[in-house]
Structures are given as structure tokens and as C-alpha cells.
């Protein structure tokens, strides 16, 4: 019996030491599952730069490549791009753009940034965030049509966000811009201001306001086909209220030489190179092989270098243009022409072409020659609009906005690459929405009046 009791103590001690994890337990597990690699809170100054870079990559990547193919500023040379040339797009092709490059990328970051700014009272920072949000939404909806916004960005709280109509998105974007412009003038006691992390303007609020007004002009001019809108008049108002005043006001994202900082077109040519810019195996590219030669356009040797892109548009440092002074001037020219102000339209057109040509590096003498030969407005109002939009088509090289302009005005006249099919009028909703948000996606397709999620369906301002 004694032996047994002696052993019990020993055994008990051993067992207690082993199995009572309670006290050691807490220390054993403490902090093990705290992620040391990724922070859970960040200041807005590290979100803004990534937002700008992400939007630049979205716009300068798939978006620019697809849209310039559609309006025949380029052609498909090999592999997947020869397939896209005949508009053989599937839902899969738009997945990266919609999901990773827009919604789950910069748009979510913008939503988060704006929330942080609102919560912490960063009034000026929030204003810049709102302007970028308006821009991000604009490029999204102009390509795809109806798109989620009011129900989006809620994570697992709402895993099937409904799509907002394009019309309501336009209203939202205008509100965002108006509020931002007002906020930039208001006092901000938080002490947190936009600084050098801002790749676009380095924290210069004056320039941000100009950008906001110019964006409002762009939003306005999109509505030229929407019945009951004052597209032209609204555009002129916005420009007069405070649009860009010179090339140095341009909102653009710059790139730098180096494999992790090169521009999207440079990387595309270097790594894929499936696009042709001129005379590919005997088939002409409308812009560079037909229109430009017909005008003796001196920009052709700047746009192109041999058979590939020249340095300005295809070099390592080729910027992505969010919105430029010259674009705004083209909007002004078109708007003034539509409201019957011929003289104003002529001045604006000359300014626009001059600004763009100066920007890409054409000499003053060549500019003068070109203006005299090609930019004198003649004929009916429609003829003049034709001339303005043709010049804009040349100037907006590789800009997705050019496709929007073509859809709006049908200038220049383009023939579809695939007989029996029309040139697409929108990007189709991607595979991931079909897989994971089908009900909302189908509702959006129906709301737009499309029979199916097709490339041919027209968005709200394109009826």
C-alpha cells in the first residue's frame, strides 16, 4: 500500500505537469497567429500611390490594348491578338481587368481610402480620393455599362452586389466631383495633407481642382446622344469654371526605366508583342496607314519607330494619360460647334491640335503647316464635327476614351474586321461575375436592354 501511495505522488506530478496546459497554454499560443508580414492598418499616404499606379496599369494595359484594336488604331499580329482582331472575345478575357485591375484593386483601395479619410476627418485627402474614385468609376462604366457601386466593396457582408445603372453612376460621379471641388477649398484641421506620395500632382490642390472640372466636362460631353441632356452646354460650363489651362496641368501617371517601373506598352512589346502598329502582312491599320498618310501627319514618325511604337507612346517612360489639356480642348471644340459657336470651335480645335502636337514633340513650323492644311473647319455643322472628331481620333492615340468618342459620334467611319459582325460597343461582363454573381449580372444585362451579355449591346449613353 505504501509503495502505491509513494508512486501515486510521482505519477500525479508527472501527469499534472503534462496535462495542465492551462497556464503554459496561453503563452504557447500567444501571438503565433499575428501576421508579421502584412499590416492591418495603414495611413492614406501609402494607399494613394498604389491606387494611381493600379488605375494607370488598368487603363494602360488590357483596356488600352483592346480599345485601340477595336477602333483600328492598331491590329492584331499574333496569338491571342489575332483572335481578338475578329472580336472573338470570351468572358474570360475581361476577368483580370474587371476583377484584379479595377474592382478588387484600385476601386476597393479607393473605397477604403475614402472611408479612412471620412472616419478620421481628412477632408482634403478625402477630396483627392473622391476625384480618383470618380475617374475609376468612369473608365469602368464607360467600358462595361451598368456596374456595381452602391452595393459594392462590402466583402462577405454582401457577396452578390447589385449593379447600378450607368445613369445613376453618372449622377454619383458628378456628386463626387462637386463635393471634392468644394472640399478642396474648405478648411482642414486634421493636419494630414496630400504630399509627394501623389504621383500625379505632388499634392497640388489647384491642379486637382482643374482635373475635377475637366472630368466634369468629359462626363458632360458623353451625353451627346442622351435625349434631354445639355451635353455641350454643361461641358462648356465645366471648362469655364476651372478646367485645364495648359499642357503642364495634364493628369498623367509617369513611368521610369527599369523592369519593375517600365510603362505598360513597353512591357507589352518586350514580353508579348502580339500587336501590329502598321502594315501587318499587307493589311492596313486605319489610323497609321490610311488617315495619317492622307494628311501628311508629321506625328506618324513620332508615334511609330519603324514597325513598332516610338518612344513617346511605347518607351520605358511612356506615361498613361488620365486626362489632358488637349483632350479638354477637343471637348471644348466639339461642344462649341454643337452650340453653334463656329469661331470658338475653330480656336479650340487649333489649341487642341497645337497642344497635343507640342506635347509629342512636333516642331512649331510643322504644326502651323498641319493646321492650315487639315484643321480649317468647313461645311455643315456635321462636317465640322467630323473634322474635329477625326483630329481627336488621331490625337487620342491608344487612349480608351477614343473608343468612347467613336461610339458616341461614329467618327471616323470604320469597317468591321469580321464580315457579318459589328465592331463591339462594350466589354462583356467577365467570367467571375457569371460564376459568382450571376443573378445580379443577369439583372444588369436585362436592365441595359441586352438580350445577353454581348459585345454588341449599347450602354446608356450609346443608344
Amino acid at each position, binding site marked *: 500500500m505504501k509503495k502505491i501511495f509513494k508512486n501515486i505522488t510521482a505519477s500525479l506530478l508527472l501527469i499534472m505537469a503534462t496535462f495542465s496546459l492551462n497556464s503554459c497554454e496561453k503563452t504557447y499560443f500567444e501571438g503565433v497567429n499575428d501576421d508579421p508580414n502584412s499590416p492591418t492598418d495603414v495611413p492614406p499616404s501609402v494607399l494613394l500611390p498604389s491606387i494611381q499606379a493600379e488605375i494607370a496599369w488598368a487603363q494602360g494595359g488590357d483596356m488600352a490594348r483592346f480599345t485601340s484594336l477595336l477602333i483600328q488604331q492598331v491590329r492584331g499580329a499574333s496569338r491571342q491578338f*489575332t483572335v481578338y482582331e475578329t472580336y472573338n472575345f*470570351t468572358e474570360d478575357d475581361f476577368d483580370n481587368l474587371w476583377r484584379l485591375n479595377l474592382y478588387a484593386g484600385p476601386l476597393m483601395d479607393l473605397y477604403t481610402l475614402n472611408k479612412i479619410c471620412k472616419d478620421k476627418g481628412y477632408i482634403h485627402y478625402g477630396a483627392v480620393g473622391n476625384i480618383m474614385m470618380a475617374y475609376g468609376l468612369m473608365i469602368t462604366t464607360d467600358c462595361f455599362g451598368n456596374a456595381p457601386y452602391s452595393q459594392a466593396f462590402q466583402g462577405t457582408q454582401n457577396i452578390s452586389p447589385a449593379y447600378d445603372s450607368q445613369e445613376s453612376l453618372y449622377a454619383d460621379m458628378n456628386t463626387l466631383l462637386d463635393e471634392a471641388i468644394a472640399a478642396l477649398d474648405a478648411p482642414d484641421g486634421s493636419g494630414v495633407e496630400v504630399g509627394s506620395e501623389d504621383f500625379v500632382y505632388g499634392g497640388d490642390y489647384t491642379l486637382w481642382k482643374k482635373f475635377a472640372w475637366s472630368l466634369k466636362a468629359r462626363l458632360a460631353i458623353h451625353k451627346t446622344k442622351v435625349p434631354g441632356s445639355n451635353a455641350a452646354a454643361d461641358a462648356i460650363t465645366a471648362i469655364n469654371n476651372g478646367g485645364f489651362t495648359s499642357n503642364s496641368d495634364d493628369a498623367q501617371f509617369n513611368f521610369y526605366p527599369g*523592369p*519593375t517601373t517600365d510603362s505598360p506598352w513597353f512591357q507589352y512589346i518586350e514580353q508579348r508583342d502580339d500587336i501590329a502598329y502598321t502594315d501587318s502582312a499587307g493589311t492596313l491599320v486605319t489610323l497609321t496607314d490610311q488617315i495619317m498618310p492622307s494628311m501628311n501627319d508629321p506625328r506618324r514618325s513620332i508615334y511609330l519607330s519603324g514597325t513598332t511604337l516610338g518612344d513617346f507612346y511605347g518607351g520605358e517612360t511612356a506615361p498613361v494619360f488620365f486626362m489632358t489639356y488637349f483632350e479638354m480642348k477637343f471637348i471644348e471644340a466639339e461642344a462649341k460647334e454643337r452650340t453653334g459657336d463656329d469661331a470658338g470651335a475653330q480656336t479650340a480645335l487649333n489649341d487642341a491640335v497645337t497642344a497635343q502636337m507640342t506635347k509629342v514633340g512636333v516642331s512649331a513650323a510643322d504644326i502651323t503647316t498641319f493646321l492650315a492644311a487639315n484643321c480649317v473647319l468647313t461645311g455643315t455643322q456635321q462636317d465640322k464635327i467630323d473634322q474635329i472628331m477625326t483630329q481627336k481620333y488621331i490625337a487620342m492615340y491608344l487612349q480608351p476614351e477614343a473608343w468612347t468618342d467613336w461610339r458616341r459620334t461614329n467618327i471616323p467611319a470604320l469597317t468591321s474586321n469580321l464580315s457579318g459582325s459589328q465592331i463591339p460597343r462594350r466589354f462583356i461582363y467577365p467570367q467571375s461575375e457569371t460564376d459568382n454573381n450571376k443573378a445580379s449580372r443577369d439583372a444588369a444585362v436585362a436592365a441595359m436592354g441586352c438580350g445577353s451579355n454581348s459585345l454588341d449591346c449599347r450602354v446608356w449613353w450609346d443608344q
Partner: protein
Amino acid sequence: MRKLFTLLVVGLAFVVLQASAQERTISGRVTSIKDNSTVPGVSVVVVGTTIGTSTDAEGKYSLNVPSSAKTLIFSALGMKNKEVTLGASNVIDVALEEDVLKLDEVVVTALGIKQEKKAVGYAVQDVGGDALTKAGSRDLINGLSAKVSGLTVINSTGSPGGASYIRLRGFNSITGDNQPLFVIDGVPIDNSNLGSGNPDNGSNNFLESVSNSNRALDINPDDIESVTVLKGAAASALYGINAAGGAIVITTKKGGKAGPGKSVNVTFNSSIQWDQVNKLPEMQNKYVQGTGGEWYGPETGMPVSWGPMADTMSWDGSAYAWDKHGMLVSSNDPTAKEKFIPYDNLDFFQTGVTYDNSVAIAGGDDKNGFRVSLGHLKQNGVIPLSDWSRTSLKFSGSSKISEKFSASGSVDFSNSGGQRVQQGSNLSGLMLGLLRTPISFDNSNGLSDPSNPNTYSFPDGSQRNFRGGGGYDNPYWSINKNPFHDDVNRVFGYASVNYIFNEHVDVTYRLGTDFYSDRRKQAFDIGSRAFPAGQVSEEQYFYRHVNSDLLFNFKWKFSEKIGSNFLLGNNLYSRTFQQVYAQGDGLNFSGFYNMNNTMTVLSRESTTRYRTGAVFGDWKLDFASQIYLELTGRVEKSSTLPTDDNVFFYPSASVGWVFTETFGMSDNKVLPFGKLRANYAKVGHDAPPYSLRDVFVGAIPADGWTNGISFPFNGTGGYTVSDVAANASLKPEKTSSYELGTELRWLNNRIALDVSYYYSKSTDQIIPVPVPGTTGFASAYLNAGEIENKGVEAILNVTPVKTKNFSWDLTLNWSTNKSKVLSLSPGIETIGLGGFEGSDIRAIAGQPYGVIYGGGWLRNSAGQIIIDDDPTSFYYGFPLADPVLKVLGDPNPDWIGGISNTFTYKSWSLTGVIDIRQGGDIWNGTKGALVYFGMSKLTENRGTTKVFQGVKASDGAPNDIVATLTEDWYEDNGGGFGSVAEDFIEDGSYVRLRQLALTYSVNPKYLKRSPFSSIDISFVGTNLWLSTDYTGVDPEPSLTGANNSLGMDYFNNPGTKSYGVKVRVTL
């Protein structure tokens, strides 16, 4: 739960008794019943202690036993154990019976516990060390191929050091790791397959880059004594989380008493094997580089081979940088000089050679044993300049320090690494560049030395390839200018002590660790197509885990017939994993591959920690050696689950019934042994670390076509909200499984059959469920999804012939597994597991796991293909593509099996293992791409006409439109870059001669006067014969390595066959 265990244990602790001090000497002789001969090497042990000895060369033994000793147990390999109760006499002679039925065969189960096989209530199979290495297998996983039913082994590439993927019983976790746990001597070891490349690219790194190793390759197969495969959940319920996919339990060779008259046993193994590529895709050799029937030379950068027919072309002898013979012209052209002969670029591959040598010294006495082994393997691959080598040094020892106390330990040092080759979807990928090369361009430039710079470059340093320096790397450039080296230094081992209180209670404590550093360096020289400015990257992985087991074992008998064993244990496991990645972009000048020579450097670091703690119990009951019952339970806590809800409980129950004992049939001539078994078990998986809180990560804007940019950008840092939404209330995944089985032996064990049927269902899968991008995330961690697996496994062992000089043993194993994803999450139909746009591998509700998903032809409701009959359309006469993607194939085979034959005649033996896979689709992406490029043999029919089978779009009438198979068609939907992948899904069934070994064992009587105990010489071969309908490379490898997405072939490196000689000498 815990209180209950404590009470139970305390109760049982009362049973501890003390030993007393007096002794006596027992001696005797052991003979064999069969022929009355004496038996040496028989172990004689006092039951309940470590007191024992062995019989000498004359079968005699002598042992001092304490007065409290009650029983002696006599055991020897191949003989039935015998227990003898000690009486008054001090002389005990014993006659042992031959164990024909191998009933006392012992298997090693979970935690290193040895059990008699007949007492095991679940499916278990073991493979002896010899069987693993007999045919010269270079690594453990390869050696297991086709030997274990229900075990799938897939080698991901024929490249030296390439990863092998291993899986038991199907997929139980949708996104987690489905591979079994590897355990050596009771201690888990790491078997990761770590990808290379910028960690920002995530799992896309597996689609390109090199084929990295899985860490089980560090084990020297010559050190392995036996491998027990625990197939189902019941077998591994004691390991908890990490063994949800089963367990591979490895026992290594230990020392022990050397043979009679010797102090140590020395074993030498040496082999040399030659490897050759076993299969390459079918290529055309009739049309040269060009498009539209016109020749375009390399300087134009022409990517495709749609040029004129080779036999209409000649060289013109002009001075031409791209070809010594000149430019190509039509043979009718006045400048034509020499008839063009197509180049065979596939002679790029060489015969590889592998040297494998090892030596082991083992020795000891009754109480102590040690073993030291040193092994070295060096493999030169079939791709020039690729190699891999492994050096391993192992020490193990064990000692019975006193009657009650024994200790053992082992430590294994291993160094491995090599120079590897780019593969997959990568501009510098070897096969990508090689297979797309037109027949009119000679990658080797007529030279035979693969490291000669004139094959791949011009004197000015620019690249010489079929696309004028652009496009893809010349394979010679790739092997010379894109070097990849890895160097792994690893140590794993354990120390364990065991203390026996008395015949009822003993305790073991075991501490094991595994740590390694894996350093990789990848360089791309200036001009490499993947990184034209050049790039150097250095990657350092550091892995360490520590595993602690404390086990109390209680044995007692309730009565004469009813025995019981209770194991109570505590396990602590802690793991740390660190990665540092540095990438230098833009070399300042070529040829110097060092980070210091780069212009911009980005770096990434990450640390992951993980810990679990568990308490478990295992209770076995044995009713008269007829009915065996086992109950286990494990309570576990994991660091990756929410702190207020991170405990989970896994039970299992098994029962085995040896019905032949119950019905008194053990003397039956026909069926002396029959057993039924059934079990139920629950295991699970926890969450990946750090999935509970939303985080921000560094921004890396990119798209599917370009590498993109990264932060810091121009000196500014940028973060983005992580694409994966966290979930603060994750629960563990659970798998419940049921298994029924039987084991039958007929005709004196000439025929033995083991069949199991299993069903398992996994729920609450933790999956990054894809959510619509419009939620702001690409995926969210949710407990969702159910997946079920069911299958049958059978092993049949037959000895058709057994005479004095000749025997023939045959083992057949066969298994089938059907998995089905029952559901994912509400609103979620599919989860991508890996792959490319247009054809990827997915988990889809209602489908088997891991199906191939992509574009197919448009069909009507009767399944007929719809043909475009609009004369103005580009596709007139051609089938139309279905814009809705669908399931195209299933990479899971219908069944797999193996046939192992061993013929023994006197000193000769011949073993062959045949490996059969029936079913299992593969997406032949390589062929799809080669069709686009005009290089696939399929495109020899270019220009011919075809009436596609189907119905017309407008009226449904049978198609009669004659279409011409043009370049335009093959560059569109007729080839792999269009939107239709359907035609490139092929059946990957195969029959192959996996292993062949012809061995001659020198007759021991010739060696009596020599220092040698045995000499065996073998001629070995692996993969010598392959029969398959698959038109690409060997259908077994998978592009993504040891990963859940199988069934993809996109410029995979080819598989190999090998043959050689192996010599084994023991002293």
C-alpha cells in the same frame, strides 16, 4: 475532457509495482519444428522488461532473469512467437514453428507503435526497404510507385531533382494539401514542394520557372528498413491535423548484433544508370518557317511555320548570319545550290547518367546497436547542363541502458541541390523554345558541344534564335545563360527515452526536429527573353519544426482471454518558416550573375509561425486473439483558429474479427486465415495561418500579359487591400470516413487477398471562395463546401509456383477512387485550383475534384456540333465555338493498378513491376500551341479539305460544306490559342514497365573464405516500356508539381527511361 483523462490515468497509476532484486540463470536451446535444426539469432526476452538475449550460432542461449520474472518470449523472423512460463526448471528448450501465415508479422503504426498486423482494424500496407531500392530507385516516393494499392505517385518531370506528388484515397481537402504526412521513426518530417520566383506571383510560379524538389527527396532510400502506408483516416487519427491525407510511416535501419563471428556489418551499394528521354510530342518535318506559304527567315522574327514545303526548297549558299548553308530559296530558283534537309532540333537531349553510392556500417550487441551510413547520388539529366546531387550522412543508435531504461536516437544530415532548367509557360522555358523552332532553323548551329556560345549567340553577344533574337530563348541559350542553382542543407532527427515501470506500464518521451535552409539563385542574362534586361534573384527559405511526444502505455489483462492496452499521449508541434527573396533587375553587364551587378533591387520577406498542442488516447482490446477493438480520441488546439474556438476533437473506432479463429478453422487446408474489419474515423484540417484578419499587402499592379510594376515605385511605398477577405470565425475542416475490409489467406498462404472499401466525406472546407470582384475582394475564406470520396483497394498476393529451386511470386494491386465535390458555397459554382485562361483546373459542384474546364464546340441538344453555314462568315464550314465554358475532362483515372512479378531460380531473381493507369484526361496545351505554330504533326494536313462532322447552324441539316484547313483556321479556333480547348483534351491512360531488375546473388558457399558475406549484382531498368495513346510527352508528369491541380501539359519537360547496373556487397 481533460479531467476525465487525468482521473483515468491516476486510477491506472495504482497499478505500478516495484521489481525485486534476486536473480537466476535460465538457459537452453532453440530448434525449428520443421526439421529439428537449431535456430540462431532468436530473441529471448523476459516479458515486460528489456532483459533479453539472442541464441548463438548453435541455437543456445543463457540469460540472467530476476526472480519476479514470469514469462519468456521467443521470437524470430519467419517463425511464430512462443511464450513459455517459467517454472522450477532453469533449462528451457523451445521448438519454434514456421510462420507460414506471417500472423505475427509486425507493422509499425502511428507514433512508431509496433502492432501485430492481424490486430490492426484498418487498411495498412507495408513495403520493405529492399523492394524500394531493388530496381535502383533514386528516391523514396518513386520507389513506392505501383506497389501500394490506392497510392498515386506522380512524378512532375523527368528533370533531375524534380518533385513527385503522392496521394492516398483521393482528395479530402479542396484547397489544402492532400498529400500524406511523412513520419520517420515516429517523428514527422517536412515534405514541402516550395516554388521559386517572386512571392508576389503566388501559385503562378508553378506554371513557369523550374521544377523544384519536394523534400522527401533528401532521404536516402538505402537507409530505409520498411515503409508502412496508413491509408485512411482511422490509421492516422492519432496524428490529427497533419495526417488527414494518411501517413507514410518510415522505419530506418538500426544497428544490432552483427552476424556470427563479426563485430560489425558493412554494406556497400553502388549503381550506375543511364537515362534517356522516353517520349516526345509528334512534330511535323515537312514545312519550313514562314506564313502564307512563303519562307520568312529568322531575321524577320517570324514566329510560325506555315511556310513552303521543305522538299521544294534549297539553300543558296550565300553568306547568311542565321544559317551556314545560306538562305532558303525555291529549288527552281537559279540561285539554289544545295537541297534543303530539315534540321532535327530534338537531338538536343542527351543520355544522362546517375551514380549512386552508399556505405553503411552497423553493429552492436545484445544491449546496444548503432548504424552509420553515408550516401552520395549524382544525377546528370537528359537535358544538357542539368544535374542534381544528394549527399546524406546518418547516425543512429540505441541502447538498453538498464533493465528498465533504454534510449535511442538518430540524426540525418543531408545536402542536396543542382542546376535546374526552365519549364512551362515561360519565354525562357526550354520546351517552349525548343518545340516551336521551325525545321529550317538549327538551334545548335551545327555544333555538338551544348555549352559552345556559338550555338546560341553571335560574336556581339546578341541571341541567336529562330525569331531573330526575340520571341523565345534558344534552348542552348536557356541552359547556358539562365542558370538556376539550389542548395539545401538539412538536419532531421530525434532522441527518445523509454522507461519501463513494470510489465504493465511504460513511458516514452521523444523529441524530434527537422530544419533546413534552402537557398536558390536564378539568373537571366541580358538578352534572355523572359527578362531582357537581365535579372538575378536570390531566395532563402528557412524551415524548422520541433515535435514532442510524451506517451504513457498501460497493458493489462482483464482475464485470461481479454487483453487490453491503453496509450495516453501529449503532443506539441511548433513550426517556423521564413522566406527572404531579393530580385535584382537589369544587369549592368552580362555574364556576372551577382546581386551587386544589378540596377534595381526589390526584396520581400515573410515569416510564418504555426503551433499545435494535443492530448490523445488509444485504447485497444483483444478478445482471445479473435476480436480486436480499438478506440482513439484526440483533442487538439491550433494557433490558426480563433482563440475562443480553436479546440476540436477527433475520435475513431476500429474492429477486427479473425473469424477463422472463432470457427476453429486455423488448421483448415483451404482457408486457414480470414479476417473482417470495419472502422470509422474523423480527422480534419485547420485554417492556413493568418487567415483571421484583413490585411494590407504591397501593391503589385500587373495583368495577365505583362510582369507589371511593383512597389516601392520610384522611391515611394504603396499598399493595397489584400484580395483575400479574412474570416474571424473560421472553424476546422472535418472529414468523416468509414471503411470495411477483409483479409483472406488460402492454401497455406499461397494466395492472400486484402480488400477494402471506403467512403469519406469532408465538410466545412476552409476555402478561399471566389467572390465577385465587385465585393472588393477576389476571394474570401469561408467554411463551405463538401467533398466526398469513395473507393475500393485490393491487393492480391499469389505464389503460383514454389519448388526447391524455383519460385514465382505475384502481387497485384488495384484501386479506384471516385471523388465528387458535393457543394461549394451558396452562389459559388466553381473554385479555380490552377491553370491558364481558357483551360484550367477547377473544383466544381457536382463534378469530380479537379476537372478540366474550358471552351468547347457549340452543340445542339442532341450533342451534335453546330457548323457555320453563312457564306460571308470567316468560319464558313467550320464548327462554332460555344461562348459558355464547360467541363472538358477529368484528370482522375478510372482505376490504377500494379502487377509485381518476382521469379527466383537458385541464385537468380527477376522482378518486374508494371504500372497501369486507366483513364485520366490531360489537357495537351503543348499540342494546342504547336498547332497554332504549324509545328504539330497534326498540321501536316494543312491545305487539305475537310467536311466537319456536325449539323448546319441555320437548319440543322447534316453538314456537307467542304472547308479547307488553312493557317488562318489553325491560328484561330483550330489551334490552342483560340477559344476552344476541347480538341486538346486527351486520354492519359498508360501501361508501363515501371521497374525491372535481374539480380544474381553470389552463392554464399563461394564466399566462405572471403571477407564478403554476400554479393548481389543487378541489372535494373525504370520506365523501359510505355504504351499510351497520349500524343505528347510522358503522360504522367504534371506541370504544377506537387500540387492539387493535375492534368496539365504545357511544355512540360519530357519523362525519361533508365537502365543500369547495381552492385550490393556486404562484409
